C-alpha cells in the first residue's frame, strides 16, 4: 500500500506503514502527559524552524525581512505490529502555529482533542479546526484532580460539540484510560467511514 511518490523500491515489505494520531488541545491540557502514558518510548521532542516574512517589508532594499521561529513538536510511538507503527503527535499549543496543524493532520487517522475543564475556552480553536477539516475526532476530558467535574452533556453544550462526536472522560496520566481514549478514537474513525460502494 505505497502512497507518496517518493516511496518505493525493493525491501518495501521491511518498512512498516506509519499511522498518525494527533493529540490536540490548549496549552497545559495534558497532551504530552497522555502521549507519555501510552508511548513505548519517553515522549520525544523535535523542532521545526519556521521562516515567516515579517510585516513592513522595506521596498527600497529589495531584501525581505524574515523572522525565524522554532516550534517544538512532541511525539510518542507505539509499535502496533511488524507491519504498522503508530505515532502520536501533540499539536504545538500556541494557536498561532495552526498552520503546522495542517501538515500534521494530513494523513492522520484521527485526532483526540484533550480538554481541561478549568480552561474550556482553550479547546475551542482545536475543536473548530478539526470540525472544519472533516477529520474524525473525539473529545477527551482530562479529569485533573481538584478540577470541576461536569457531565458529558454539560461539556457538549459548553463547547458546542456535535452529537456525532464522542466525548470520553480520562486521566491522561493513566495508561489504561489513555489507551481507551485511543481505542475510542479508532472505533469512531471506523464508524465515520462512508459506506463502501
Amino acid at each position, binding site marked *: 500500500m505505497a*502512497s507518496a511518490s517518493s516511496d518505493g*523500491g525493493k525491501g*518495501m515489505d521491511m518498512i512498516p506503514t506509519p499511522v498518525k494520531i494527533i493529540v490536540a488541545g490548549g496549552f497545559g491540557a495534558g497532551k504530552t502527559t497522555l502521549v507519555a502514558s501510552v508511548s513505548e518510548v519517553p515522549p520525544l521532542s523535535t523542532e521545526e524552524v519556521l521562516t515567516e516574512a515579517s510585516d513592513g517589508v522595506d521596498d527600497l532594499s529589495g531584501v525581505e525581512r524574515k523572522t525565524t521561529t522554532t516550534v517544538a*513538536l512532541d*511525539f510518542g510511538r507505539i509499535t*502496533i505490529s511488524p507491519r*504498522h507503527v503508530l505515532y502520536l503527535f501533540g499539536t504545538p499549543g500556541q494557536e498561532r502555529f495552526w498552520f503546522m496543524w495542517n501538515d500534521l493532520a494530513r*494523513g492522520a487517522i484521527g485526532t483526540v482533542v484533550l480538554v481541561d475543564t478549568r480552561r474550556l475556552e482553550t479547546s475551542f480553536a482545536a475543536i473548530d479546526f478539526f470540525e472544519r477539516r472533516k477529520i474524525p475526532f473525539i473529545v477527551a476530558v482530562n479529569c485533573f484532580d481538584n478540577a470541576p467535574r461536569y457531565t458529558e452533556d454539560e461539556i457538549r453544550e459548553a463547547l458546542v460539540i456535535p452529537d456525532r462526536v464522542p466525548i470520553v472522560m480520562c486521566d491522561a496520566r493513566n495508561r489504561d484510560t489513555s489507551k481507551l481514549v485511543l481505542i475510542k478514537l479508532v472505533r469512531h474513525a471506523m464508524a465515520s467511514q462512508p459506506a463502501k460502494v
Partner: protein
Amino acid sequence: MDDGWYDEEAGPLVRPYTITSGRTPSPNMKLDVATQVMTIRSETEPTGLGPEHLQIVRQCRQPYSIAEIGVYVNRPLGVVRVLCGDLIDRGLVITRSPPVQVEAPDHELLQAVLNGLSKL
C-alpha cells in the same frame, strides 16, 4: 567545512540551512513527520556525504520516522527532510509515508491499529 562549528555551544550561530547549503525541502517530495526511512543495505559506506547524511544512514538501518531522525541527529525537521531527500536521490534509503486517502483511512488499516491497541 569545519565540524567544530556544529558543536552544541555554537548552536545558534549556525543557521539550520547552512547544513543543507541553503536548500529547503522540495515541495513535490514532501516527507511527512511520520514517513519511515530505511537504509538500503550495502557492503561499503557511501562516499561524498556530509556527516549528518552519514549519521542518518547509520541510524536508519532500522526504519525510523522523519521526526525520530530529527531527534537523533538533533536537527530541525526541515533540515532532516532535505538530508533525507538527498539520500533518496542517491538511492541509499527507501521510504514509506502514511497512506493519504482522499475519502477516509481504509478499514483494514484501522482494524489493524485497533487490534494492536487492544493488545497493549
